[in-house]
C-alpha cells in the first residue's frame, strides 16, 4: 500500500503578487523596445531570477543592510561584510508597509519597511546582521525603530544636515569611524589598511565602470536608453560588486562598438531628458519608462538610485588607515546632493551642469507623494532651471500603477512642447 502523504499546496513564487508586479515591469522594459543591448541580458536575467523566480542571491560574508547612499560601502567590504541597499520599489511592499507609516508617507520608506516585514521577501539576500540607517529624511529616521521592532539590529548613522559647516565635516568623520568600529564587531574581522585598500579598489572599479557608462550617454543621438541604465544601477543595490562591474564593463564595450558603428538607440530628434528627484527603484521604473515610451530619452539623472550613488569618487592623499577613512567619509558627505540638507545649491549646480554637458532639452522632476524634502526643493530647482531657460516637468506620484494613464498624457505633452521649442529655435 502506498502511503498517501498530504503535500501542502504552495503556490510557486512566480505566481505571487510581488513576482507579477516585477514581471509586468520587466516585460515592459525588455519587450517594449527593440535593439536592447545584448550585454543587458545579464541584468534582465538577474532581475528575473531575483524578483520573478525569487531565487536567493549568493553573497559572501555577513549581510549589512543600508537604507541610503551615505553608508560607506568600502568600510563594509573591508570589514568582511556585504552591503545590501534595502530601499525598495515594489508597490506590493508599499502596501504591506502602509501599516507602519501615516497615510501620506513616502512609498519608498513604506516599501522598504514592507519588504523587511515580509517573509521570503525579494530580492532574497539572506540574513542581515545589521541595518545601517543614515539619519536622512524624517521618515527614514523614524523607520529605524520600526525595523528594530521587527527584530533587526539597527545602527543610526548620524548624518549632519548642514554639510557646509566645518564642524559637520569633523563630526561626520567621527561618526564614520565609529561605524567602522561597529562593523568590525559585527563581522569579527579587523579593518586593516590592506583590506580597506582592496575594498576601495572594488568600489573604484565599479565607479570607473559607471562613469564610463555615464559618459557614453553624452552622445547624441543616444546609444542606450535610460530605463536600462536605471536597471543597471538598481542591480548595484544587491548584486555582487565584482560581477556587477564586469557586466557593466561588458555593456560599455558594446556601447563603444555601437558608437563606432554610429548606431542610434533613439530617433534623432528624441527629446533628451535629465531625471531628478525621488529615485526610481525597480519595479517602480514607471516614470523613466513612460518618458522613453513616449519617444524621449533619459540621458542622465540626479537621483540616489543611480548617479548620486555611484558618481563621486574618493581621493586619498596619505594611505594611512585613519586618513583613508576620513577621505571616504568626506566623499559620502561633501558632494552629496540629497535634499535633506539645509541648503542645496550643490544639487542645482549639478543639475545645470548635467543639462548643459549632456545636451539635454528638459528636466523631469519626480517627487513621491509624501516626500516633503523633494516637494520643498521643487520650487527652487524650478526657478533655477527656468532662469537658465530649461523646461521642467514636475510630477508627484507614488508606487501605485493607477496614475499611469494620466502621467503618460502629461509626459507626452511635455515632450511635445520640447519638440515644438526646438523646431521654433531652429526656424
Amino acid at each position, binding site marked *: 500500500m502506498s502511503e498517501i502523504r498530504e503535500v501542502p499546496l504552495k503556490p510557486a513564487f512566480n505566481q505571487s503578487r510581488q513576482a507579477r508586479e516585477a514581471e509586468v515591469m520587466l516585460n515592459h522594459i525588455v519587450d517594449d523596445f527593440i535593439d536592447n543591448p545584448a550585454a543587458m541580458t545579464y541584468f534582465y536575467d538577474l532581475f528575473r531570477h531575483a524578483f520573478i523566480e525569487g531565487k536567493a542571491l549568493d553573497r559572501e560574508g555577513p549581510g549589512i543592510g543600508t537604507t541610503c547612499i551615505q553608508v560607506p560601502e568600502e568600510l563594509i567590504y573591508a570589514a568582511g561584510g556585504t552591503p545590501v541597499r534595502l530601499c525598495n520599489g515594489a508597490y506590493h511592499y508599499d502596501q504591506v508597509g502602509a501599516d507602519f507609516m501615516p497615510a501620506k508617507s513616502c512609498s519608498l520608506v513604506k516599501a522598504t519597511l514592507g519588504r523587511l516585514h515580509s517573509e521570503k521577501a525579494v530580492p532574497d539576500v539572506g540574513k542581515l546582521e545589521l541595518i545601517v540607517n543614515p539619519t536622512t529624511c524624517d521618515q527614514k529616521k523614524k523607520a529605524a525603530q520600526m525595523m528594530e521592532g521587527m527584530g533587526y539590529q539597527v545602527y543610526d548613522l548620524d548624518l549632519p544636515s548642514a554639510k*557646509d559647516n*566645518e564642524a559637520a*565635516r*569633523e563630526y561626520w568623520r567621527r561618526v564614520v569611524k565609529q561605524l567602522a568600529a561597529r562593523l568590525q564587531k559585527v563581522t569579527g574581522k579587523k579593518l586593516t589598511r590592506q583590506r580597506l*585598500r582592496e575594498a*576601495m*579598489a572594488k568600489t*573604484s572599479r565599479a565607479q*570607473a565602470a559607471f*562613469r564610463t557608462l555615464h*559618459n557614453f550617454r553624452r552622445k547624441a543621438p543616444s546609444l542606450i536608453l535610460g530605463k536600462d541604465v536605471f536597471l543597471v544601477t538598481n542591480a548595484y543595490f544587491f548584486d555582487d560588486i565584482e560581477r556587477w562591474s564586469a557586466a557593466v564593463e561588458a555593456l560599455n564595450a558594446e556601447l563603444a562598438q555601437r558608437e563606432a558603428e554610429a548606431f542610434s538607440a533613439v530617433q534623432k530628434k528624441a527629446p533628451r531628458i535629465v531625471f531628478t528627484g525621488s529615485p526610481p527603484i525597480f519595479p517602480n521604473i514607471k516614470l523613466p519608462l513612460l518618458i522613453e515610451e513616449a519617444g524621449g530619452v533619459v540621458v542622465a539623472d540626479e537621483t540616489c538610485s543611480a548617479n548620486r550613488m555611484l*558618481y*563621486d*569618487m*574618493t*581621493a*586619498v*592623499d*596619505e*594611505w*594611512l588607515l*585613519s*586618513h583613508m577613512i*576620513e*577621505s571616504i567619509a*568626506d*566623499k559620502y558627505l*561633501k*558632494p552629496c546632493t540629497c535634499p535633506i540638507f539645509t541648503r542645496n*545649491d*550643490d544639487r542645482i*549646480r*549639478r543639475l*545645470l*551642469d548635467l543639462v548643459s554637458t549632456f545636451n539635454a532639452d528638459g528636466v523631469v522632476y519626480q517627487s513621491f507623494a509624501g516626500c516633503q524634502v523633494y516637494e520643498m526643493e521643487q520650487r527652487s530647482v524650478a526657478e533655477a532651471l527656468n532662469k537658465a531657460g530649461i523646461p521642467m516637468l514636475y510630477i508627484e506620484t507614488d508606487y501605485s500603477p493607477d496614475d499611469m494613464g494620466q502621467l503618460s498624457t502629461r509626459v507626452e505633452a511635455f515632450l511635445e512642447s520640447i519638440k515644438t521649442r526646438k523646431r521654433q529655435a531652429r526656424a
Partner: protein
Amino acid sequence: MSKLRDAVNNVDLKRFRFWFQLAAFVLFVYGGYLAINLGNSLPMFSCGYIRDGRAGVCYLLPLQHQLARPWPQLFSYAGVAVLTGFAIFALWFIVLNKGWCGFVCPLGTLQDWLTSLRQKLGIRQSGYTHEQFRRLTWIKYVLLALLLLIPLGIGGGLWSHEVGAPFCQICPGRMVLPLFVGDFSQWTIDFSSPGKIVLTALGMGITGLFIVGAFVKKRFFCFFCPMSALHYLLSKPALLRLRKDGSKCTRCGDCYTACDMEIREIADDVTRKEIMTDDCTLCLKCVAACPEKGALKVDFANITFFESTEEGFIKRMNKGIRK
C-alpha cells in the same frame, strides 16, 4: 597634440614633483660648486648662508640689508639698488608665481621630505581646526611687516645695527640648509650682543619647531612664511595661474583632502575663478586630485597646460590603491 595633452593630464604628479623638487634642491644647494649663480633676488628660500654651494640667494637676505642702509642713502642712490633688486625679484616671481614654493624652494622641499618620512613610519598627519587656521594665517603678514620695518628702523637710527637681517636670525633656512653642505656653524648662539643672543636663541627654538612641526604637519612652516606673504601681494600679474570653474565643481572636497596647506576655498568656493589663496604653494596636488574635467586647471600666460580630468584622476587613484 591631444595625445600630448592627455599624457600631461594623466601625469603621476607625485612622482613628477618628487624628481623636479629633488633636481631643484640639488641645483640651488650645490649649483654654486659648478659656478652657477642666478643672482640674489630669488623668490624662495635658496638660503644665502649656504656659502659656496648656493646657486643664488633668497631675496629676503639682500632686501633686509638694503633696507637697513642709513636713510639719507636709502632715499638717494641706495634706493636704486633696492628698486632694481625688487624688479629682478618680481620678474623671477612673475614666471612661476607661487610655483616657486610648490616646486623649487629648498625649504619647502625639505618639509615634503619630512612628510614622506612620517608617512613611511606610518604616523598620521595633524592639521588645524578651521578656527586655528583663521587665527594663524595672519602671522606671515606680521612677519613680513617686521622684516621690512625693523631694517628700516635700523637705517633710521631708531635701533642699533646689531640685529642685521633680523628675519634671517630666526629663519629655519639659515640653520637647516647649510647642513646640506656640511656647514654646522649656524648652530651656535651668537653672544656678541644681547640682541643677537635673543635672536639666535629664538632661531634655534624656531628651527627645532620647524623640524618637529614639518614632521607632524604638512608644510608647517610655509603657513607662516613671510616670503609667501610677499608673493601673494605681487601675484596679480603672475603668469602661472590656478583657476577654477565652479560650475563643474561638485564640492566633493577631494582637492581639499590633497591640499598640504588645508585650503578650504579650493573645494568650497564655487564663484571665484582665480582660486589661488595666500597660503597656496601652487603644488598642483589639488588639480591632480580633482575628478571633474576642467574644474581645476593651471594656465601659463592664459594657455591651459594641465587640468583635472576623470581619466587622470582614476589613473592616479588606482596607483595609490594598488601600491
